[in-house]
């Protein structure tokens, strides 16, 4: 490309001719032996080429498709012009966590799904571009702390430092409030640290996003279990004007089948926490061990199941299975993750459900009895209900099982906060316009409200909560509830 061509405006037709740029990534045979991130990220050239594909729609549907309303065409235009730092700052106007969202958001179901280009071509690689500019800004040491407004003198406690809590904290700090984050584990980041593996989201990136918040004046207290050390009411007594609860799902579901407490059977939370937060893959250099045998079955079809099964391969599993009771089309995991898992040699057993575990005399699991399923009528979720095929039982030899069939809500805070309303699943009930709970001044968002969902939905809830908390502590009345706007389907 000559300099002359570079600045020449290109028309719509030419833009549509450019193919979607592929992000280079580690080869499957290499990456199954390491925990390094799978994609390398776009190069500046690839990013500018990709950015040129954006049609700069006058009424961009992608913005409405983003739970945190990033001005997508504006930042992409800056990328096309080579102003990567400007692009990063444009995103940060509404999204405090672009390096994370660029990696783990299901863009194919959000902004990219509604991109005008998808009608005839592939959508603009919005997620890849977001990731690129955030990485560029960080790697070039250009992360700038925005000028903060004068202090309001208001104090806000944020319980939990996952995506919801980090977003609330960032937004409120930028409005001049004093924010303190309380995290139960010893490192901040919540699911971004204990749950999502290094090969999908490097922990250094989470740390740098947390550092950014600290530079905004946010205080982070780790190893602080709210509900045990202090209750929500005690936080109010300590002088906080409002409290946001973003404690996540955090209580793993098991299938309640025979033999589930045999050794070798993990919840995905435990398996991933050992590997990620405790870095057990580096045992004995690190003190926390993790057991992975030769035949590993991971139960479930979501992103957590994919993270677990891909972790098991990296920890030496010879056969790594996904055992899922429905078929491929019903799998809730991101297509990209399923694709990566397949490339790495994960074996998928669809329409299969475990019914009991078989153990040895020392209490270790050695096999799993399964039954084949078929799809019946759609259930409440709209997905076809799996039904057992009588007599189709078979035994799968396994020495490690990871149960990744979802989480229930953690009871620590609801149990110790009188007057906090929860639904029958133990999730905190909130007004969706403000995220405020039944207790005035107590807001909540993320998985503790929705049950297990995505990083970006949690961040989106955090944004809504931050706006409402600002109004609440400043004595500004909440807006009249708006009519529910059409929102793209997200799970």
């Amino acid at each position, binding site marked *: 490309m000559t300099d002359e061509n570079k600045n020449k405006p290109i028309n719509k037709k030419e833009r549509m001719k450019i193919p979607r740029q592929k992000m280079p990534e580690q080869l499957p045979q290499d990456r199954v032996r390491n925990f390094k991130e799978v994609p390398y990220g776009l190069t500046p050239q690839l990013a500018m080429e990709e950015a040129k594909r954006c049609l700069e729609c006058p009424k961009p549907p992608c913005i409405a498709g983003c739970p945190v309303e990033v001005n997508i065409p504006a930042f992409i235009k800056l990328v096309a012009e080579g102003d990567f730092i400007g692009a990063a700052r444009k995103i940060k106007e509404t999204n405090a966590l672009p390096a994370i969202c660029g990696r783990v958001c299901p863009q194919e179901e959000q902004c990219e799904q509604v991109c005008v280009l998808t009608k005839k071509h592939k959508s603009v690689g919005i997620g890849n571009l977001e990731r690129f500019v955030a990485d560029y800004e960080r790697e070039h040491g250009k992360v700038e702390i925005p000028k903060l407004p004068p202090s309001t003198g208001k104090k806000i406690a944020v319980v939990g430092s996952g995506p919801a809590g980090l977003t609330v904290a960032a937004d409120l700090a930028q409005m001049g409030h004093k924010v303190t984050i309380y995290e139960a*584990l010893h490192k901040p980041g919540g699911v971004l640290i204990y749950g999502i593996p290094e090969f999908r989201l490097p922990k250094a990136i989470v740390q740098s996003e947390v550092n950014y918040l600290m530079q905004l004046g946010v205080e982070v207290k780790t190893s602080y*279990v709210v509900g045990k050390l202090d209750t929500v009411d005690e936080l109010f007594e300590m002088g906080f004007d409002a409290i946001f609860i973003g404690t996540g799902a*955090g209580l*793993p579901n098991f299938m309640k089948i025979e033999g589930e407490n045999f050794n070798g059977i993990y919840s995905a*939370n435990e398996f991933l926490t050992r590997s990620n937060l*405790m870095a057990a893959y580096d045992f004995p250099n690190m003190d926390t061990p993790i057991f992975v045998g030769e035949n590993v079955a991971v139960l479930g079809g979501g992103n957590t199941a994919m993270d677990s099964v891909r972790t098991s391969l990296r920890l030496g599993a010879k056969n790594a299975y996904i055992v899922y009771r429905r078929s491929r089309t019903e799998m809730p995991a991101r297509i990209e993750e399923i694709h990566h898992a397949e490339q790495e040699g994960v074996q998928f057993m669809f329409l299969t459900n475990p019914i009991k575990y078989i153990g040895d005399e020392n209490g270790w699991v050695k096999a799993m009895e399964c039954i084949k399923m078929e799809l019946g009528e759609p259930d409440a979720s709209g997905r076809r209900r799996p039904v057992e095929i009588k007599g189709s039982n078979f035994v799968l030899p396994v020495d490690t099982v990871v149960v990744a069939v979802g989480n229930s809500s*953690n009871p620590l805070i609801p149990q110790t906060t009188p007057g906090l309303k929860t639904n029958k699943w133990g999730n905190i009930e909130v007004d969706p316009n403000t995220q405020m709970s039944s207790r005035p001044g107590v807001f909540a968002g993320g998985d503790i409200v929705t049950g297990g969902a995505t990083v970006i939905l949690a961040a989106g809830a955090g944004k809504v909560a931050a706006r409402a908390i600002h109004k609440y502590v400043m004595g500004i009345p909440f807006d009249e509830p708006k009519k529910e706007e059409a929102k793209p389907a997200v799970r």
Partner: protein
Amino acid sequence: MFKIIDKKELCENVHQFRIEASHLVQKAKAGQFVILRKDDKGERVPMSIGGLDKNKGLLTVVIQEVGKTSASMNRMKIGESFADVVGPLGIPSHIEKFGHCICIGGGVGIPPIFPIAQALKMAGNRVTTIIGARNKSLLIFEEELSSASDRLLITTDDGSYGTHGFVTTVLQKLITDGEKIDMVIAIGPVPMMKAVVNTTREPKVKTLVSLNPIMVDGTGMCGACRVTVGGKTKFACVDGPDFDGHEVDFDEMTKRMKMYAKYEKVAYEKFLHNDCHLAKQIEEMR
């Protein structure tokens, strides 16, 4: 942060720490536990609370060297700090006026019975405490428990001190003698707790046990600590640590406690080797 203010060796391989943790100490109640992490490479290990000095804000824990983590903790010095002391975790022991309570502690289960005995006594109970060890030199916390109990009974496996036998030898005798017992709480090695429960099953004496299985987060998130109680899976960290002893599946718990035995051995041997090597180097430098 979590500075070791005081430390002493109670018996071979068993050290008592008094750690600065004033906020936690103000909130903690008898029967709860904490999670300790030594440093950035360290495991998160659950530890029973062996005492709460609310005036000085000091937490007492007693650590027995059984592997690398406990060994390296026991080599920490006064003035050094733990990276994390998390808690108070778990549901406090249920304390009310039961009448005559028997507190039973074995080995390093003796220290955590101390705050419970204190609390039971405060609530107006008559407290009989039975503590046992393999031999006299391994018996710890005698003085503390003597002050917290109306009556302290001691057993040693080899008869070197107190009654010759196990804690259950004495417990059985109290039952046979027809003493009115309203409640028993036992903390110690799994075989001891199992034996206590077997002793009180027939006479139908309410018996609580405090379980300390393998944990990671200690807040209900991971499920490593699951135990079968009354045929149902419970998480010891959030549903316990105290459970009705007659309902606990101790055999399953024993097996689950051995989940990482091989790894623990590797880490411990590596640690002892390095430790030995280091000692030699220091010796040579002198």
